[in-house]
């Protein structure tokens, strides 16, 4: 796995959340790659959809949601890993 690629994706996802989906009472500094976006109330269902579409746009590859556990895509770090993992495994195939 390309660590630089993963870090860059995490950074752009965190920026996207801060710019587009941050509720009024959250400070940008509170958002980290380990936070659970759903249980911590940062995103609702449509917000998560928008985020997934953003990540797919960034990687140029769809995330296979038929096999991924929803809990794994609610944490930015895991989401980015899955998004890039899909890309690596598919191109390797």
């Amino acid at each position, binding site marked *: 796995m390309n660590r630089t690629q993963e870090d860059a994706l995490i950074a752009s996802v965190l920026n996207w959340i801060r710019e587009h989906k941050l*509720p*009024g*009472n959250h400070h940008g500094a509170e958002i980290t790659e380990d936070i659970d976006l759903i249980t911590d109330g940062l995103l609702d*269902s449509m917000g998560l*959809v928008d985020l997934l579409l953003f990540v797919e746009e960034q990687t140029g590859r*769809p995330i296979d*949601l*038929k096999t991924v556990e*929803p*809990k794994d895509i609610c944490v930015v770090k895991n989401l980015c890993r899955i998004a890039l993992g899909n890309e690596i495994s598919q191109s390797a195939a």
Partner: protein
Amino acid sequence: MRNTVGGFLKSSERFASRSALVVDGETLTYGDLRRKAGRLASLLLRTEAPNSPLVAILAYRSVTAYAGILGILAAGKGYVPLTPKFPAERTRRMMILSGCNQVIVGNECIPHLSELLEGFQQPLTVILPEIADATDLRRDFPIHRYLLSKDVQESKGSVFETTVSTQAIAYLLFTSGTTGEPKGVAVTHSNVRAYIDYMCSRCDLNEADRFSQHSDLSFDLSVHDIFLAWERGACLYCLPERAVLLPAKFIRDNALTAWFSVPSVISVLTKMKLLEPDTFPSLRYSFFCGEPLPTSYAQLWQNAGTHSIVENLYGPTEATIAISHYRWDRNHSPGECLNDICPIGWTFAGQRSSIANQEFNILPRNQAGELFLAGSQVTGGYWNDPGKTGAKFVRLGSSDDTVWYRTGDLVKQDWSGCMYYLGRIDDQVKIRGYRAELQEIEAILRKACGTDQVVSVAWPVRDGSADGVVAFVSGQKALDEGKALKYCRTYLPGYMVPQRIYTLEALPLNLNGKVDRGGLVRLLEGART
């Protein structure tokens, strides 16, 4: 009157070793669940305060949530579902309004309980079935009595009240109120039985079925899932919080046979390309309720659940879950939709509907008007609020003494009796299926923004359903939006908190001098393009 838990009790006798509930990684048989509920019921009755017909339950997608509801009903009490997803201030208000002095709390809600007890002056009995030590709670909130796991385990006997009085309350649900305070809808066992009996009579559900439990307990779609499943001896599958957002994998992994949710779920799954043909081969029944069902969504779901009967249900909380239905037919239904929205169909057999004008005169067929409802599913009014009850539960001009609930929904009925939802006649909106009064949001906004010149609109609206709310204020140039939103979050559930608060020089007015909400929506549309 037969208690709502009567169906569960019978099923627990017939199918003691069959699975009744899958939740939070655990599977409980009917026997397991009955034992847990019976102990809780016995403890509730031993520790009850006089004249207290209701018990609150603060638990979220856990064993305690379901055992607690069953235990409360088994004790002959009604349950008041509280959710950790609401701000503590709102939950505290619900507790006070309901008059509950007993509350069952799940382990997952302990942090929320501390917030709730902060400033709560009335002594409560707090039952914590999974907690062995409450030293911290006793130290911080000493006026309350705490009963722990040991007390539940040692609770003697297994009470199950099989009959209740005709007017006994099964549950009290709070909905958005126009005055800035939530209002309680008291639903009786008699109301619930009418719904369950009717659904059982027309749906071939049995002990082999696997029901979804998608909605929060504070939303009455959950009552359908829980009590219809247990009435038939079926198993209830509670979706984990994260699976609620994208439930496709959960449906497939657990081979669910009966699904019930708001139509917004279809929107999310469609956007993520998860609704391909035959995605859900196990589904036999799919029910949608809570907001308009677009034609395209019904078609997509029908294709995904090829073997499923798809039904659009309609009904306000005041009429107990749903009171009319429309069964989707892949050949004929697209031609029967109006404005690309699925009809709300026909009133349940035994229930009544009328369409009337603002003077309460019944209108002829094919003429649009407000929908009024009556029958055994229609509740008696709002909890301890004769004023609001009198305004919404009325008599119609030319009818007998029947009390009708005025829904506020604009509806048309064709010559066959099929009804079509056309919109609202007031400022109530549905946000992803949740009912919200714009007036309640504005009452909080006025305090949050320090001005009376506030207005809120549902936005964005996709496929007939709102995703959220946006607010506008004027007369407050130096508004701190973040601070105002933080205030809103203290009092309003997340779905009612505005996504943004925009400051305008002046609010636009229409020809009647009222705030032009349509103009504000056009402003938002313009900004998007």
